[in-house]
């Protein structure tokens, strides 16, 4: 508890500075409304149900897109590492697709699937799949030859060996790739909703900003930031647990 307090003290200092700056009107209060005012606006959004109503579709899109990306990305990445034809077929696609800013695809996915959930899910899926593929691929390639041999000599079939040796060997890199994808899911979720959507947290931010409700706009921005932070912390905790075998170094 005390350690956490010290660790996040820069955030606390920033919050105090923010409050002081807007309190003494060092910058205009429309550009930077006082935190107390933002807190009030947040409570209003919550009690009116506005926040929940928009958070639900956002989290749904982010969640589904990310889960699909994890599923397909892990299988593709591992397959690329172990079957040459898959690598030949998909490797170049990944290389070309990787540096494209995924937000540039927002209009494309909208043309394909319209303004609703589909286009957002597709965008998040495509964007998040790349770091997952790359993590799974690098991880699977790093599996040790002797472990592969070891499993084979104990009677494991080739497919069984992939599951028993290659997948766990890939896990550290794969889980790191998924962590990157998790952050990316939030980015793509808000960006896509900000540009074309009828609902969602990104849409709400855009709407409140356009209407001059800056305190409320900040409230939603900070909510998104907190959700992203919380998701990453929870994920790290789970990742730590999944890789416990690695971190128990001999004393």
């Amino acid at each position: 508890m005390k350690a956490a307090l010290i660790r996040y003290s820069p955030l606390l200092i920033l919050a105090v500075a923010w409050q002081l700056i807007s309190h003494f009107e060092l910058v205009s209060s429309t550009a930077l409304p006082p935190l107390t005012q933002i807190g009030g606006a947040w409570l209003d959004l919550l009690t009116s149900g506005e926040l929940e109503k928009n958070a639900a579709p956002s989290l749904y899109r982010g969640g589904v897109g990310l889960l699909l990306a994890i599923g397909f990305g892990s299988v593709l990445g591992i397959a690329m590492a172990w079957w040459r034809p898959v690598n030949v077929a998909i490797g170049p696609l990944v290389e070309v697709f990787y540096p494209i800013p995924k937000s540039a695809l927002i209009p494309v996915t909208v043309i394909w699937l319209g303004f609703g959930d589909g286009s957002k899910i597709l965008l998040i899926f495509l964007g998040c799949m790349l770091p997952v593929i790359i993590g799974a691929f690098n991880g699977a390639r790093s599996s040790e030859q002797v472990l592969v041999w070891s499993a084979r000599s104990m009677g494991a079939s080739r497919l069984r060996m992939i599951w028993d040796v290659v997948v766990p060997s890939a896990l550290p890199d794969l889980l790191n790739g998924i962590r990157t994808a998790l952050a990316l899911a939030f980015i793509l979720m808000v960006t896509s909703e900000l540009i074309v959507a009828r609902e969602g947290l990104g849409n709400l931010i855009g709407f409140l900003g356009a209407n001059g409700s800056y305190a409320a706009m900040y409230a939603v921005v900070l909510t998104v930031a907190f959700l992203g932070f919380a998701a990453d912390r929870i994920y790290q905790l789970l990742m730590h647990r999944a890789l416990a075998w690695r971190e128990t170094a001999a004393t």
Partner: protein
Amino acid sequence: MTSDAQIVVDQVSHRYRPPSGREVLALEDVSLSIQNREFVALLGPSGCGKSTLLYMIGGFLPVVAGSILVDGKPVGGPGPDRGVVFQHFALFPWKTVKANVLYGLERTQLPRSEREQRAQSYIDMVGLTGFEDSYPSQLSGGMKQRAAIARTLAFNPQILLMDEPFGALDAQTRSLMQSELLNIWRRTPKTVLFVTHDVQEAVFLAERVAVMSARPGQIKALIDTKFDKTDPHIFKSKAFVDKVDEIWGLVRDEAVKAQASRRQ
């Protein structure tokens, strides 16, 4: 003579191409027969291809020139009739000691309770009682190797292929492990092929020592090394010391050659 041999290596050569550079002839025309229940050490300077030969018998590397028969059948791929103990243990780091030992038993027809019992008895045998739930990263080098040996012995392979299994251990642990291995071999007779570059280890453990030449690896000599291994003073006995000296002479020439070829 080869009729009742369990492993027959006949005129095997092996070439490989390193990621960069020219093709290397690792083994040339190697022939070796190992009898059922025999303990043979494969001795040679590092880089002579002795591990390569072991991996070929294990079925990990393809036999292109010559032939390798195990129980009269050509070696195809790896299989549980040949248990392998690798130099660097090759334990699954994400599995506990017990789960590692159970792994080889999973594909046997034994019922679950039987497998559990078997795993436990081999863990007890190698002295790892109380470490069943430890991960390999929590064990010392000697303990890891004992876990690896328990894992291989547990599924009861007829043939044990051991690739410098004690190479990474400190002298004390190594000596304990050698005695333990001999005990196990005596209790559950198996055919053992043991790769090492340690002359004393080879003479102490094996009934026959195959001395390999520097690259390209060939069998330079086959030497009988049957002693009373239970004699606690064996290391000081004249017969033992003479045998070690004799083999040392053979190995030293090859080690010097290997050194020279590496400097080129």
